[in-house]
């Protein structure tokens, strides 16, 4: 992949909305995970989440008439899109909307809307179901809402690939840009899993922490006492352009997408392959595609699922690829602060990594207190660290053995902001 760059970033996440707000909070190394308050979750084994609290403050562009027709996950995506376009100094009137595309990742769909309608279906019959249900719940609904709101008409797709969906969406958007089929891409993901049914599904998934008594300490990747991850809601969306186009319009150029590879473990419907062999292969392949030497990687943003097998296999994959140098590369899971946004996590990890490049600072893995002999890399425990990053990798993994890795290179030469 050559000369596809990130020129605008919009994030809506538990630590904050907007990139400056988000960064200000995640660099502090504190937790934004709390007990679920949207509904009574007291009987669920895992009843914690990273929850977005200030979405209404950023919704002035969207009418109440629109918002009542859509699910929260589309609302989150609209806000993140608006923030990304503003951040990239993009006025869509200057772009051919038939050559503008949307690439989104999602895992769950719009259950906050769907659940109440299904309840009404069984209680009141078909006339009890909102006609907006048909266009509100399905995973591609946010793509549709973004396209309608902005009048975007170009080649677009929504990718479903469990927790790797948005990383894949960014990569496919970048490839379509490289093929010159589009001039501008909105890429990323969104997730709103804090609903009774979605939380139930996530619980039966078997990967969630049940440390309900200690919300801030519940998500502890790579720590020996880890017991799974915590879900979160939010959205991360960015604008992608060809470098020459971005430079021509004097856009902020944050980072270059240098490569993306994905493969499958072919091992189990839930667990990862324990040796991390296929994740290692995806990393090797992406280094080759990006033209990165193993010595040149300055940071790796971990999947950090916080299950025994997940963290060990991820650690093994890094050691298999980088050998002795694996110990020297900061390898952190900043999502430990706010939860895992499932299908949207990859895009939030990309934004976190780009902000880390811009600020010469690696965000930490929090709650790392008890060393696991099988997880012995530099996880940047508990506190952010000054560290210059030119080249980085972002890892996303999903159920069924999905491995996805993206290579990024810093382009930003402006002030740290």
């Amino acid at each position, binding site marked *: 992949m050559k000369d596809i760059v990130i020129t605008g970033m919009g994030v809506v996440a538990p630590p904050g909305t907007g990139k400056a707000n988000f960064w200000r909070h995640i660099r502090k190394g504190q937790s934004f995970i709390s007990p679920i308050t949207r509904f009574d979750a007291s009987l669920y084994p895992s009843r914690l989440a990273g929850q977005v609290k200030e979405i209404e403050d950023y919704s002035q562009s969207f*009418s*109440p*008439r629109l918002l*009542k*027709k859509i699910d929260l996950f589309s609302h989150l995506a609209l806000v993140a899109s608006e923030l990304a376009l503003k951040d990239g100094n993009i006025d869509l009137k200057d772009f051919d909307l038939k050559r503008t595309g949307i690439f989104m990742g999602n895992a769950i769909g719009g259950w906050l809307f769907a659940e109440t309608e299904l309840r009404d279906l069984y209680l009141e019959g078909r*006339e009890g179901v*909102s*006609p*907006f249900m*048909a*266009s509100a719940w399905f995973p591609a609904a946010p793509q549709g809402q973004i396209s309608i709101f902005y009048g975007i008409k170009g080649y677009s797709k929504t990718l479903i690939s469990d927790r790797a969906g948005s990383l894949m969406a960014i990569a496919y958007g970048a490839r379509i840009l490289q093929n010159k089929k589009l001039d501008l891409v909105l890429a990323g993901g969104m997730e709103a899993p804090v609903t009774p049914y979605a939380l139930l599904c996530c619980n039966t998934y078997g990967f969630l922490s049940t440390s309900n008594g200690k919300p801030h300490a519940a998500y502890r990747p790579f720590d020996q006492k880890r017991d799974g991850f915590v879900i979160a809601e939010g959205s991360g969306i960015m604008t992608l352009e060809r470098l020459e186009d971005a430079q021509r319009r004097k856009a902020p150029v944050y980072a270059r997408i240098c490569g993306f590879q994905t493969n499958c473990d072919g091992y189990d419907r839930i667990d990862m392959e324990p040796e991390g062999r296929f994740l290692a292969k995806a990393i090797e392949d992406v280094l080759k595609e990006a033209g990165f030497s193993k010595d040149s990687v300055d940071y790796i943003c971990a999947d950090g699922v916080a299950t025994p097998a997940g963290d060990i296999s991820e650690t093994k994959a890094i050691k298999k690829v980088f050998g002795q140098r694996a110990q020297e590369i900061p390898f952190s899971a900043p999502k430990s602060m706010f939860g895992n946004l499932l299908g949207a996590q990859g895009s939030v990890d990309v934004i976190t990594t780009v902000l880390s490049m811009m600020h010469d600072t690696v965000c930490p893995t929090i709650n790392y207190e008890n060393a696991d002999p099988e997880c012995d890399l530099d996880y940047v425990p508990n506190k952010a660290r000054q560290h210059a990053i030119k080249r980085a990798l972002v890892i996303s993994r999903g159920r069924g053995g999905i491995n996805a890795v993206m290579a990024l290179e810093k382009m930003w030469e402006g002030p740290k902001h």
Partner: protein
Amino acid sequence: MAVAQGVKEVIAETLSMKPEEIDVNAKLSEAYDLDSTEAVDLRVALEKKFGIKLENAEVAKQSTTQDIINVITTKSAA
């Protein structure tokens, strides 16, 4: 009068407007951009409010508020 006010209130709720802002003689699609899904939503809300059955054609995009008031007044009297 009660029917007229009730219809205006339901239409206003559907369109996120105030009842006094509704022009009863304006076509809902032309004046307020009512789409086909919103028309279904409006029909169901009116059925619940007035306890009667309405056909899709009786609450359509091209209807005016007055058209709907007339239909519901007739059906309610029957």
